[in-house]
């Protein structure tokens, strides 16, 4: 049961067609989510985490468009393409149409929690009615039953006195309480998967801790899978079973959470871990990653991280490394040519700083 893959994303590509050029926000991302586990998606701002999440529910707005790859949820194809006889790409015939996706997947099978709890509730309607409406929409119950379920769910997420707070408006709740309501809304339809897009970023650490505990309890109870998007390594360590590290629209390292923290292989992951304070090590000064992430319109050639990579060699300019497995089961994958004998990484010379800046060229902000 634990090994059941419920969501599988393969070579997902979501591009934005802007006047300045094509922004490759998500460029070939593959990962799986198994039943009952929490998968983390971590990376800097602009790495493409949120767009990946929105792509899964096909919520990307124009000028953005999913251009390639395959998203499968259980047996249903949320997105897929096939090649015609003349070589052009068309939509796969098995792909769910908008109506089916709306009625069968969104909300009922895959729910989403958004980043800003202040903004995610409609200010003009009562909290309880918003939860109730969602339950009515996605579950086959009467209005009265839906209200009962709504109150029960609100109680479950730790809102005191839910019968009375049912008819309060969002502005009467604090940020943490609103996030609880959003979690209640996500869980209320008992989905198989909840996509959480940085849900604790806007909260202070005390409240964040409570929310994480709450989510863990509810997850255990309902056996819900999570795709947890964050830029906070501490949250990842706290909550996730497996982690995908994203950089510039690509996943550069995949591992279970213990391997990632104890035995990171990609220089970017190493640098990320070095840049956060640790309670068990005392150092004078943190060691942040130098530079900023280049734009996704015109990403650096070769390995996308080489402009900021402390270990960059000349060979890094030649190929954009694919994810390779470090073990037989391909549980720990890394996209770096350091770990591939055939690429000639160790034979080529190290990149000088000036040289690197030159290569960065216009991509450097």
């Amino acid at each position: 049961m634990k090994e059941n893959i419920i969501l599988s994303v393969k070579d997902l590509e979501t591009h934005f067609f802007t006047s300045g050029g094509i922004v490759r926000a998500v460029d070939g991302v593959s990962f799986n989510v198994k039943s009952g586990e929490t998968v983390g998606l971590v990376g800097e701002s602009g790495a493409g985490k949120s767009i990946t999440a929105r792509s899964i529910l096909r919520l990307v707005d124009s000028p953005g468009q999913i251009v390639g790859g395959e998203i499968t949820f259980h047996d249903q194809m949320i997105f897929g393409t096939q090649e015609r006889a003349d070589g052009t790409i068309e939509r796969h015939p098995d792909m769910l149409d908008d109506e089916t996706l709306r009625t069968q997947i969104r909300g009922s099978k895959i729910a989403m929690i958004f980043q800003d709890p202040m903004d995610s509730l409609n200010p003009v309607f009562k909290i309880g009615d918003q939860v109730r409406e969602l339950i009515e929409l996605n579950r086959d119950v009467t209005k009265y039953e839906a209200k009962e379920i709504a109150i029960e769910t609100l109680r479950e997420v730790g809102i005191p006195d839910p019968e009375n707070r049912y008819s309060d408006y969002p502005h009467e709740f604090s940020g943490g309480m609103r996030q609880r309501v959003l979690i209640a809304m996500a869980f209320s339809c008992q989905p198989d998967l909840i996509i959480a897009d940085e849900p604790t970023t806007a909260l202070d650490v005390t409240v964040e801790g409570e929310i994480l505990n709450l989510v863990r309890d509810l997850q255990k109870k309902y056996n819900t899978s999570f795709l947890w998007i964050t830029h906070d390594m501490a949250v990842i360590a706290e909550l996730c079973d497996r982690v995908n590290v994203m950089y510039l629209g690509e996943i550069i390292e995949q591992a279970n959470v213990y391997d990632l923290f104890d035995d990171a292989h990609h220089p970017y992951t190493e640098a990320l871990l070095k840049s956060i304070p640790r309670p068990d090590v005392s150092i004078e000064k943190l060691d942040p990653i130098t530079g900023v992430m280049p734009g996704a319109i015109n990403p650096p050639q070769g390995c996308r991280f080489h402009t900021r990579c402390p270990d960059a060699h000349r060979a890094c300019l030649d190929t954009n490394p694919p994810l390779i497995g470090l073990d037989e089961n391909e549980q720990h994958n890394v996209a770096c040519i350091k770990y591939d004998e055939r690429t000639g990484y160790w034979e080529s010379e190290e990149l000088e700083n000036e040289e690197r800046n030159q290569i960065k060229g216009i991509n450097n902000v």
Partner: protein
Amino acid sequence: MASESKDTIDSRPGELFVPAEEEYSVDNPDEMDNSEDVGIKYTILQIKEDTTARIGLYIVSIIMIVAIYATIDAQLLDYAIAERFWYHPEFDPDSPEANLPPIGITNAYGEGTVAHPLGTDHRGRDILARLVYGSRVSIQAGVFATFIGMAGGIIIGSVAGYYGGRIDDLLMRGIETLYAIPFLVLIIAFMSAVGRDLVIAMVAVSILTTPVFARLIRSEVLSVREMAYVEAARASGLRDYQIILRHVIPNSFASVVVQATLQIGSIILLIAGLSFLGFGAQEPTPDWGAMLADSRGFLLPNPWFSVWPGLAILITVVAFNIVGDGLRDALDPYIDNSQKEDEGRI
């Protein structure tokens, strides 16, 4: 060692610990007092605190009550009350009481009487009675034309704003074409084609009001549709029309209400203008605009004849505008209640 650390914790409990029982009660009790910051009750309360708006509200209420009375009498009772209590010898041009001035003033035709406190018109009809029954036309036209225009504008504007792109271009450019044509000419052309009637005048005016509301709500929708709750609604499987009805329109509505109140005033003015030109209410229906038109020939012998309907229009329009301004102040979060907004928020 252990006891020492325990002491430190005990001496500063608030700084180090969030006690376990407080875990689920992050809400600070003061915050709940903000509950009166929204809703119709609160808005009316705000208007009541604003003296000017309050006076406007009183005037509007009085005019509304008068208009409702006139409507009931005219539609349901077939002028029973009017015939019982208001003296008006209709269609009697030789009436000895024609063109009388208001009470206490004497003119070439005679002296003002208690029976006609505001005087009589050129046919000897009581001006006060005609003012009272004329309010029905003005208020009806103002309210219904605004309502139809608002409904049309909200539908067109919110759909255009929510979908954007080609649909937006098509709807908004179509709506804006109406702006390009001088409106009085358009209404007169419309009524010449369809017929002279108050209802047709109202429809024509409401069509012209549509662009005002469409533009206004579109600009609001453009910001509302970017809110996270709209995306959350999409993610939870709502249909587009449900999102527009439940989330987009209610959150764009405040400015529309303000605009509607202001619009009633200008539509009353517009309908009066149409009646003045002979395109609005037709004789013998009493109407302020038509009364002004009738009084043109009697400005010198009986100026009061034109003063009263003019004043009625003026007071009504100004009262609606004052209420609209007050409503805007009450609904705008950046005015007056901005300080309360900042208190007690996490």
